[in-house]
């Protein structure tokens, strides 16, 4: 039910952004960029929070309510239970992300069409004036309008939006696996949530901090290198999933990006789920 409320808020957010953006900028391309930025930000926030908070209480609640006893008293292996809980949580994220993507694409398309329509009207008038009184200035204005129209179409709904959605979804799946792993041994849901957010934060800033440190320090010791490598292994590099900024700016994605982030996500999901199972397999209920 709460997910449904968030989706409603998300729709309202995009609608409000659509209506308010024109008050802040008259540049049509910029308007669409800001819309996409705000929507992806909201999507990312929702997926991050849901992946952590909703997953953190899945197992502890079942233990507290003794529902877990009736489930594991059936011929259900513990790894199936764990994996099933994870998949269920991720399914909610998948459906929510799909709905949000459809809503974003719809609003983006409607706004794009409205802006293109205004531009078309201007271009028609400019063409008529250019025919009646051909001159360099009129032609230059027409050319600019044509470039603007092309830029507008590039900012509308496109397959590159899916790249951002995939990246956000994979990040949420990794976070969900980490949270589930921690919840198998944590003593409270709050502890699980805090640890998961810490892992997310460390994984996000670690590459930036390490690069900055490496560039400012001459000669790093072997031990420090080992430590940095260990941190890099345990804490996923969440910067790898940060494709939104580039996509909104219209940059070309690096080749093989999908395989790389999917491979990274699958590796970490598998590692954390296996670790979670090892903790859960011998847990006294």
């Amino acid at each position, binding site marked *: 039910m709460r997910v449904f409320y968030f989706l409603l808020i998300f729709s309202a957010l995009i609608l409000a952004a659509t209506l308010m953006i024109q008050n802040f900028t008259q540049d049509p391309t910029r308007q669409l960029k800001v819309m996409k930025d705000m929507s992806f930000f909201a999507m990312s926030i929702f997926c991050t929070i849901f992946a952590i908070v909703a997953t953190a209480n899945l197992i502890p609640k079942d233990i507290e309510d*003794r*529902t877990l*006893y*009736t489930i*594991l*008293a*059936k*011929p259900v292996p513990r790894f199936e239970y764990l994996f099933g809980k994870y998949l269920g949580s991720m399914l909610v994220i998948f459906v929510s992300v799909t709905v949000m993507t459809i809503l974003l694409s719809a609003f983006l398309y409607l706004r794009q069409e409205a802006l293109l329509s205004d531009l078309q009207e201007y271009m028609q008038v400019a063409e008529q004036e250019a025919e009646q009184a051909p001159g360099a200035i009129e032609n230059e204005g027409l050319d600019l309008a044509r470039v603007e129209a092309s830029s507008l179409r590039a900012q509308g709904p496109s397959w590159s939006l899916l790249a951002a959605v995939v990246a956000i979804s994979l990040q949420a799946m990794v976070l969900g696996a980490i949270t589930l792993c921690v919840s198998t041994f944590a003593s409270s849901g709050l502890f699980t949530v805090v640890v998961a957010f810490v892992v997310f934060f460390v994984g996000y800033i670690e590459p930036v901090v390490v690069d900055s440190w490496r560039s400012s320090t001459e000669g790093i010791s072997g031990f420090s290198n080992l430590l940095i490598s260990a941190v890099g292994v345990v804490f996923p590099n969440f910067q790898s999933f940060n494709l939104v900024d580039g996509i909104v700016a219209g940059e070309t994605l690096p080749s093989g990006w999908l395989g790389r982030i999917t491979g990274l996500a699958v590796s970490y999901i598998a590692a954390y789920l296996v670790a979670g199972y090892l903790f859960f397999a011998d847990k*006294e*209920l």
Partner: protein
Amino acid sequence: MEPAVDIQDLTKVFKLPSLKREQVVAVKNLSLQVAPGEIYGLIGPNGSGKSTTMKVLLGLISATEGSTAIFGQDSRKVGSRAEVGFLPENPYFYKFLSGQETLHFYGRLGGLSKKEISERSKELLALVDLEHARDRRLSGYSKGMLQRIGLAQALIQRPRLVVLDEPTAGVDPAGSRKIRDLILKLREEEISVILSSHLLEQVQEVCDRVGIIFNGKLCREGPMEELMAIEDQTEILLDKAPAELVEKVTALVAEHEGASLIRSGHPRTTLERLFLEETSGDSPDTRS
């Protein structure tokens, strides 16, 4: 024939999370067997090890020493649970599910097909008298209804053994009687039952054999009739006996050396029977 439950020398030690490395011995060298089709009562005070024994049997916790088997299969194996239904003490189920959906959920966990679940759930909802509430969410169920739907989910995959931990805890006398009657029906279907309860009169009514557990040890065990009999006393119940006959019997006892009359008077009904007579309109036999 292999026993339904075979527990041999079970010991369970819990290590407490403290710096002193304290540990609690919850169960110590416990051995018991439940024959197929038998209702076995495991009774004891709080903290005596009843629930621990049941949880080890169900693989929810592991034994420190000893072995547990269900119909000859090591109970640590997941496959052994295909033969078992379990109703824990004060269970909660997913409250957003209806009664029908709950049975469907547990039926799928038990490996039943959709068709089997559909047929079986109709049967069980009728058995536990919850057909009228099949589509109601469990959040709207009373305590007694929750216990009955819990019993239904325990029976969904037709187990040969049912484990009941305090099946009537917190349930009113009418609901408690319904659950008792359901347990007796399980015996008719030759389903083995192992149950724990603090309601000793109910244990007395339904169980074939009883084990008394105290401080983790099984201190007394045996068939109900044998355990309950006070061997050096005899009970004779008379129906519509006139006062003169009672006097003659009393005099006869007095003549005999070594025998003495302990008590004479009208037998007592139970508070439960009295309650049910007043509240349900039933007239159960007041004679024990």
